[in-house]
């Protein structure tokens, strides 16, 4: 889960990382009660890069300008997203701008400290200037100083920048984060440091043990929430595509394979739903059946849909639940538009499931290639 800038800065502040005085603006009229002296920066709170270029960041000198600018920003979509909140922040004169981040290096299975003296908006263009330090054992501040030196910092900045990195690392560890980034970290002419913009990505799997972060999610605009991965029934996510074959599978790899085979054979998927692997700790037959039913309902909403291809593989409860869910679905559908099903169920309970589906006259397959050929011929 990505946090918005103002949420990230709140966490920075709690950790003792310097941030500017700021105020959250929920409505343009809120600016009339602004407690920060002008000039002020108004920033659209959407999770995406390039806010400045898109017009989502504006400098204002007085209340009248501020209210007008806020109205404009609230009505300005950035990559399709409208902000629910703006951040009003004091203006800051930076002498230099640095880049700092703590991330998880997935393949090294260690945290990674990143830093560059060329921070700011064009950090992607200066990726070559990025320095890194792997935290291969228990963290200690020397890792941060190692990065500061690699970045080419000198004198007092070595200490002050590594102190910020140390706090970023603490935050990273305490809150189970995937990413803590400060870009830019401003250095004033007096050598003072200030986090001007920040990005935090919380780990979705760990949200269950950080209720404070989970609550923040409610405040994030809806479009971002759809990126959340389905963890339970409420989150059943159907991914919609352009074609006319609905695909229901269990497991990411199997779902991808089924899509690949359909595309390669000249078919066009309308949507796909991954029912998830079977390693969820709390999988129960009821949850599974409910998830399949919900998925089918969502799938049927597509007008282009001509056929549903079900490909599930497993050994404990899945086949039976799939068969039951399909049977229930077809009973509910009786009378309305009937979309044909091509079903492939492979597992220990296949015989039982087959009995159940045979009474519904559904074509059942063992072989994946054959099931796909049948689905495609029905879609033409």
């Amino acid at each position, binding site marked *: 889960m990505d946090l918005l800038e103002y949420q990230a800065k709140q966490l920075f502040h709690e950790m003792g990382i310097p941030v500017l005085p700021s105020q959250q603006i929920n409505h343009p009229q809120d600016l009339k009660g602004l407690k920060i002296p002008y000039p002020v920066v108004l920033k659209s709170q959407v999770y995406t890069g390039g806010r400045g270029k898109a017009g989502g960041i504006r400098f204002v000198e007085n209340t009248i300008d501020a209210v007008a600018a806020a109205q404009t920003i609230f009505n300005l979509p950035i990559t399709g997203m409208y902000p629910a909140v703006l951040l009003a922040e004091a203006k800051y004169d930076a002498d230099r701008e640095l880049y700092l981040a703590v991330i*998880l290096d997935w393949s090294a299975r260690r945290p990674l400290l990143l830093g560059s003296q060329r921070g700011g908006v064009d950090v992607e263009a200066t990726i070559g200037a990025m320095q890194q330090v792997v935290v291969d054992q228990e963290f200690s501040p020397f890792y941060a100083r190692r990065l500061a030196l690699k970045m080419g910092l000198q004198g007092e900045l070595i200490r002050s920048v590594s102190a910020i990195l140390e706090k970023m690392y603490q935050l990273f560890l305490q809150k*189970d984060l995937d990413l803590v980034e400060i870009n830019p970290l401003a250095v004033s002419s007096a050598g003072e440091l200030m986090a001007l913009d920040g990005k935090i990505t919380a780990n979705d799997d760990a949200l269950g043990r950080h209720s404070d972060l989970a609550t923040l999610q409610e405040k994030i605009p809806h479009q971002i929430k759809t990126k959340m991965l389905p963890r339970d029934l409420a989150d059943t996510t159907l*991914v919609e595509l352009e074609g006319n074959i609905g695909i229901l599978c269990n497991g990411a790899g199997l779902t*991808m394979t089924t899509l690949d*085979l359909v595309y390669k054979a000249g078919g066009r998927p309308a949507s796909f739903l991954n029912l*998830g692997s079977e390693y969820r*700790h709390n999988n129960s037959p009821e949850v599974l059946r409910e998830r399949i039913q919900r998925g089918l309902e969502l799938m049927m909403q597509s007008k282009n849909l001509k056929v549903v291809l079900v490909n599930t593989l497993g050994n404990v409860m899945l086949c039976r639940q799939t068969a039951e869910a399909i049977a229930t679905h077809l009973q509910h559908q009786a009378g309305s538009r009937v979309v044909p099903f091509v079903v492939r169920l492979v597992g*220990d309970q296949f015989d039982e499931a087959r009995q159940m589906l045979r009474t519904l006259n559904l074509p059942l397959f063992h072989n994946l290639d054959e099931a796909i050929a049948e689905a495609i011929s029905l879609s033409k």
Partner: protein
Amino acid sequence: MVQGITEPLGSIYAPLMQVYGGQILAGISPGHGGQQLEGIPVFDLVEQALLSVGVVDTSVIFVPPYQVLDAALEAIAAGIRQLVLVTEGVPPMDMMHLCRVAEASETLVVGPNCPGIIVPGQILLGTHPAEFYTPGTVGLVSRCGTLTYEVARELSQAGFGQSIALGIGSDRIIGSTFQQWLQILDEDEQTEAIVLVGKIGSDSEEVAARYIIEAIDKPVVAYIAGRTLPQSQYTGHAGAVVSSQIAGLGDEIGTAESKIAALKQAKVPIAERPSQLPDLLKQVLKSSTKTSAKS
């Protein structure tokens, strides 16, 4: 040993593992000590179980995600050096901690979010559906769950039994990597060829390809899922998230193109579909016999 034996997954799979032929000496479930599950004695604590049943080679862990780290540390502290973590949703920070301890204690960790290991005809340590597997000489190592079953089924039906088959886990941070298992299969006397099953996302297949060039002598064939998926799409769990949002770094890594190019460079034939794997195996086994006949 099965930790979390009274949990939903543990209570389903421990008896299946027992039936398959593995000797499940003990189950662990705090608060359930003294009970029995399908004849398996249940203990409150790992060390307590070991006092009673003697040496345990492997622990298969089914506890809820936030208890996995603790269960694994408990097993390592008691001297168990092979762990299979089945549970999905273990926070990466916990895995990082566990990986450090595992490396220092030379513990082999498989998973999390994985179907575990099966040695067909002998032992099941995880959730593989037994009916898809037959004993043989193909080593199967996969980053997927159900797709591993699919591939095993295709191999078995074409007469290619498996020496060892395992899923190393779909999560971003996993205990043992493709490289470790390629090395184990390369040294395993039962294994004549290796099937590698990957999917888009992460750099696992790219790193594995580099390792194959450097260190693997046995023939390897591969299948990669997700070749037709646009990069921005995901199919529902963390392991499959294709975007590498981290600071704009490494966007290129993880695409199907990047994986296929890396594997081609390692001269690994790539199947277009799971059902093509047996044909590729026939080809590589034929040519490796020729090569060894010449030498």
